[in-house]
């Protein structure tokens, strides 16, 4: 049970949040992208053995969507939504 820093509520139990997946690159213009690029964008997500930027939704709290950098090896949150950088 992680302790996730919500930018509005402060740290809360992971069970208050809903996982939104790793942050992907911006959605390409589907009318200006070839098939391979489109499929790559759709199906491939960052999967690092280390810090990953990912989305969380504070569904049981204030309802904010935000991102954190979490180390997939340890669950350590290496950068919260309000951290600089």
């Amino acid at each position, binding site marked *: *049970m*992680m*302790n996730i820093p919500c930018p509005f509520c402060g740290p809360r*139990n992971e069970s208050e949040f*809903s996982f*939104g997946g790793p942050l992907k690159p911006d*959605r390409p*213009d*589907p*009318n200006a*992208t070839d*098939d391979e690029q*489109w*499929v790559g964008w*759709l199906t491939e997500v960052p999967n690092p053995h280390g810090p990953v930027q990912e*989305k969380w*939704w504070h*569904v049981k709290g204030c*309802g*904010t*969507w935000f991102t954190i950098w979490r180390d997939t090896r*340890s*669950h*350590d*949150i290496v950068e919260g939504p309000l951290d600089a950088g």
Partner: protein
Amino acid sequence: MQVNRLSHGGRINRARALSFTFNGRKYQGFEGDTLASALIANGVSLTARSFKYHRPRGIVGAGVEEPSTLVELMGNDASANRPVTTVPLKEGLIAKSVNCWPSPAVDIGAVNQLFARFIPAGFYYKTFKWPNWHVYEPSIRKATGLAGTPQEAPDQGHFEARYAHCDVLIAGAGPAGLLAALTVGRAGLRVMIADEGTEAGGSLLSRKLVIDGQPAMDWVAATVAELHDMPNVKHLQNATIWAYREHNYLMVNERAPENASLLERHWRVRAGHVITATGAIERGMVFGNNDRPGVMLASAVQTYVNRYGARPGKRAMIFTNNNSAYAVAADLAAAGIEIVAIVDSRDDVPEVARAVVPDLEVVAGSVVTQAQGLRRVRGVSVVPRSGGVSRTYSCDLLAHSGGWNPAVHLFSQSRSPLIYAEGPATFVPDTPAQSVSACGAAEGQFELSAALHSGAETAAELCEGPALTPPEGEDLAYAIEPLWRVEQATGKAFLDLQNDVSVDDVHLAIREGYANVEHVKRYTTGGMGIDQGKTGNINIIGTVALHQGIGMDEVGTTTFRAPYTPVSFGAIGGFRDESVVLPYRHTPLTKWNMDQGAFMYEAGARWRRPGYFPHPGEGLQEATNRECEAVRNGVGVYDGSPLGTFELKGRDVGKFLDYLYTNIMSSLKPGFGRYGLMLSDDGLILDDGVCLRLDEHRWIISTSTGHADAMNSHMEELLQTEFPDWNVFVTTVTSQWNNATICGPKARDVMVELGTDIDLSPEAFPFMTFRDGHVAGLPARVVRVSFTGELSFEVNVAPRHLRALWDKVLDAGSPHGILPVGSEASHVLRVEKGFLSLGHEVDGTVDPFDLGMGWVMSKKKADYLGKRSVHLRRDGPGVRRELVGVIPDPDRMIPEGAPLTPRGEKRPTEGFVTACVWSVVHKRWVGLALLENGHARHGETAQVRLKGGELIPVRVTPPVHYDPDGEKLRT
């Protein structure tokens, strides 16, 4: 008779005798005893049989480390595989040994000892292969498994799980933990301290030590009292911290909560910092027959004598490689136990050690090679390590110490690494990976004064101001020369008593190539028992290191995993049990439905819904037919409240909905509604529903019941992360608007009868529009949508009014024979109409074209979710499965999900039947199916193939079996 009870001493209440039963015999002990200390006091030494060879075993330890004697508790205390040393004695306790029959003294399984030679480690991988394992399995399974299984849930009391927060969580209330608690407690931090024992004190409970010139337990009592008076300190005894998770989240199992109706309490603690002051666990010596009853850990013998006033033997030998056993010898001698000799594997025994037992014989540079006796140790053979003749000493107790291991389990569970320290010859905490620190013996500080200092200093780092000056503790200096196994041992020398793993087994494993410590552990099962090798694992590592000629660090430890000690599933579950094991949701009509005798079941999103309303003697089919006929020929009403409903507001709602739905919504005029379909960007169907436009900037959208939460997430994610500049607000109003949907040819008559200020004429109030007004005197929003194919009025009111509305609808409809309609009838009506259903026709593979809904995919919009992917998929080589109607011929029911195969052959399928219902319109079975190229196959006969090869020919038709032009629902 408590023949081995010392005449005085111990922390037992001799005024309160307790009766208990062990293996069918009655005994007495005292309040304050454990089952183990009471058995020792009663002179019971043969208490168990070993797991594999069924060798006679006794009590070895005094705490959670006990590897040898496991008992099963009976009655309301029922609990399997409890280390006998961790069972507090209570009046009427009934216990028996596990893994022996009929008793440890007369154990049939002992016959295994005869074959011991032929069943080395891993023997089962090499045999029991012919004809197959399943032939042997039942008899082998019976022989394993230790204690019997629990038969029923506890009949009294319940469990509780709760949350807690603190600044500092301290594991262990021994000298270091107590001093740490005092330090942070006085500094005003919020502190929790939890200790697995029945009372605080840790090792001080077992040892005769002095703090600040007073008996150490006086200092413990004063400290506990001061902590008790601090409102910022929570002190739990009988409470084991058994798991250390990520982000300093720890689990505590409290076994004797003050609340009498509670069996156990499960604490989930979020701690700012954790101090592990968990003490140390003694390891044994590894020599021949080191498992005989009467061969015990030295510290355990000390505990029985000092803490429980119980004498494990009369003539004791001591075998050690370190100083701590000398203090044990001194305490034993003081209690009147004869010490025959101290065998010390070290050539040079430190003077400080000899000084505490000046009158005793110390046999230095020697080792015990074998314990003699079968059901009880009768003597020991001793040889000098340098060689020479073996000498036999007669004794009835062998207290041995192979040194001390910090209890690093929690620290290691925090993902913090351990490092091998040559000085204390053990693994100690290295750099912390979370906000955790170790102190006292858990850090490798085995002497009292050092432990107290480390407790105070560790705690001082967490608060401002100088550290407390720790009290003065006097203790024997610790020194050790490690001895992982006695090389000269004769007979089986056990490394893991619980799983009967000997030195020979480890050597065999390495010989056969299972050389990694993880292989050794798995091949021999060493350390895989309930005790998780608390006393033996390091000796296994040492044995591997010696055999391979490498260092302890190179071998490394195996992973420490939760739980530290076994914990009951009941406590982990708390009282999330029975009716609340999963959430459930009611509409204001749920109770009414149940009162009507409706068959209730769980529908999407945890709603409890009526399936059908049977009359007496009716089954599902009869009741469903009756409800369907009411809707098709007269009028019915159903509770549509659970449908997900959202109010959207803002300038950009139209633009947003155009992106969300496949069709155009922004062109909708106020007062009108439109059906729409949503896709994921993968081009798979997510959901469908109706959008209503209230005015220029306000909209209401409905989603399917089961997907309401997912749709909320989807919309918020898009708005907050993709389109933060768009002016759209989303508010969930599912439970602000409940509805009764009146449907059937007579629906308008019922509405008139109810009384409304809305003009109900088809011209004034056409299909796919809505009106705000009053119905039956209640403020209502009436929507003309239809999920049944009949004329329908969805009357939305505030939930507080729904029950009143419902009664009035039933009254108004009674002249027309109105019936409440359940989910089963809704399903039939839907299938007759060929309306899609998320759980049936939408199974994660189809797109709108497959469903014959290509019209809903806007060609005008350049982009919307899923557009690109649907077309990409359709451009591929895959053959599409398309929605068709199926008419079984001859007329019969087709099981839903049954596959269609080409010509009915036993070969890959070409589709499956998504639904099949008894049509009240056609008076026959009709169905829907997804069929390869189905749209081009109307009129063909296809074959449904059932299990076993039975074929059902079906006529392929368009998917709408009723009112294909939709005239009824528009009337």
